[in-house]
């Protein structure tokens, strides 16, 4: 499988501030990071001939990518609005790399932003969160999203002996990373005891096992490796990518303790020609703490059932065997709705460029980024390299 290995690179990234950012419009959450990413790359919007977006909860145009291109004054040869839930951000990199490698376009702008914290009423946030189960076969039972992830957490605990303390250790580790980042939404101290004593939402998941609700946006510029060599930043190569979709509704999942990340990861690793033990840092989708444990296992970083102990032993902390979510992830950095996961990508690029300041993983050369969408349903893995 040759894929687009060594053919495509990320050459620009841009981010807005995150947390409560009421002074930006939903489209500005796309345009501001886009302009920053172009500046970062040393390009202008007139260099862009591919545009990928997802849209935002607050302003979700049916043809969002075309509206965004129009707003920016870009006339792309290749554009799409992609919706795979939390797998969208990584899937957009997959699509961009595929399009560039196939010669469909030269330079793709990926922009994803949302105004989920200050742009929606509490009622709309709750109503949207409730709107996930199958309308006939799940929703009548009160199938809230955290409840459906709790079903997976309970099963993992039953089969592998995973504990609430091990789940909490994910949130605590990421909070420490967020403190080192300095620009995260939540940076107050968090202990295992704090997580376990936070409000129980759906047993065994507490409030602090759940990701934040945020405003924020980020953008990424992808182009050919050839062109990347002449641009401002050190190119970060897209070495491999893969997707895996096993179901949408959790009642249709074949196994609640193994997810499609296994297939997505296998494809990405095969394309990149590397193995899990080669990866220096991983940015793993973390809508709920249980997901990080499942991804560590299904992507091959831990044997099945051993991720809880790995996390509890400091394995995902900075200084550990595999630092994970060094920006604080969605549990502490930000979780801007439809843009969830885009900051995992920009953080990986910073790590590989050596621009991660006080949270830099020493000599980071290979990073894996993974997005999980729906109810452990859609998966996209991207492997990035400094060389």
């Amino acid at each position, binding site marked *: 499988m040759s894929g687009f290995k060594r053919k495509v690179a990320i050459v620009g990234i841009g981010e807005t501030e995150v947390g409560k950012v009421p002074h930006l419009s939903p489209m500005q959450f796309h345009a501001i990071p886009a302009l920053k990413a172009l500046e970062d790359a040393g390009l202008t919007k007139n260099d862009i001939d591919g545009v990928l977006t997802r849209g935002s909860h607050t302003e979700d145009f049916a043809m969002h990518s075309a509206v965004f291109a129009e707003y920016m004054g870009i006339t792309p040869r290749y554009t799409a609005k992609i919706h795979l839930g939390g797998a969208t951000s990584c899937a957009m990199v997959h699509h961009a790399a595929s399009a560039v490698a196939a010669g469909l376009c030269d330079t793709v702008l990926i922009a994803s932003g949302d105004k989920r914290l200050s742009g929606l009423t509490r009622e709309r946030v709750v109503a949207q*969160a409730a709107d996930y189960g199958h309308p*006939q076969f799940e929703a*009548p039972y009160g199938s*809230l999203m955290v409840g459906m992830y709790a079903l*997976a957490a*309970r099963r993992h605990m039953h089969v592998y002996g995973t504990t609430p303390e091990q789940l909490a250790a994910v949130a605590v580790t990421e909070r420490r990373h967020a403190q080192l980042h300095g620009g995260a939404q939540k940076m107050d101290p968090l202990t295992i005891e704090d997580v376990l004593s936070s*409000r129980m939402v759906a047993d*065994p998941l507490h409030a602090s096992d759940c990701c934040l609700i945020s405003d924020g946006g980020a953008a990424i510029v992808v182009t050919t490796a050839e062109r990347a060599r002449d641009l401002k930043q050190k190119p970060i190569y897209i070495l491999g990518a893969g997707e895996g979709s096993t179901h949408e509704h959790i*009642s249709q999942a074949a196994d609640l303790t193994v997810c499609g990340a296994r297939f997505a990861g296998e494809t990405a690793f095969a394309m990149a020609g590397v193995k899990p033990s080669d990866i220096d840092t991983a940015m793993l989708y973390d809508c709920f703490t249980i997901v990080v444990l499942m991804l560590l296992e299904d992507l091959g970083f831990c044997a099945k059932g051993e991720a809880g102990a790995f996390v509890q032993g400091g394995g995902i902390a900075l200084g550990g065997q595999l630092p994970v979510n060094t920006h604080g992830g969605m549990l502490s950095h930000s979780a801007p709705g439809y843009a969830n996961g885009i900051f995992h990508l920009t953080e990986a690029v910073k790590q590989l460029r050596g621009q991660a300041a006080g949270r830099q993983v020493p000599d980071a050369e290979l990073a894996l980024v993974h997005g999980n969408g729906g109810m452990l349903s859609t998966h996209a893995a991207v492997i990035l390299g400094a060389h």
Partner: protein
Amino acid sequence: MADAKKPIPVPNEDSMEYWAGCREGRLMLQQCEACGHVRFYPRILCTACGKTDTRWIQASGKGTVYTYTVVHRAPSAAFKEDVPYVLALVELDEGPRMMTNLVDTGDRKLEIGMPVSVVFEKMSDEISVPKFKPAGEP
């Protein structure tokens, strides 16, 4: 939101026999005539072999708890009076898994693998939804 109603299923061309069964207190599943695979939710093809020849069978209504969670925060105002409630996946004796609520659990300790049996809860004249209670309960 105070007058919010729980989402009531709207039967369609795939599911009308299923909901008709529920209305009469029968849990109906589809079985593939070609390979024998039993599936849920209802649809036009067998998810195992892809064939479309299908018969409807009445399920025993018995199964075991595959996983569950006790929900403490209502997803909408309509569920506020229900919390805490038990959201569960039940594996039917016929094979398929379905989402449901565990009801009438009393003082029973909830656990994965516990045997349960179906009861039907009326939501409207047309719709009754299958829920499950611990098997062997008086």
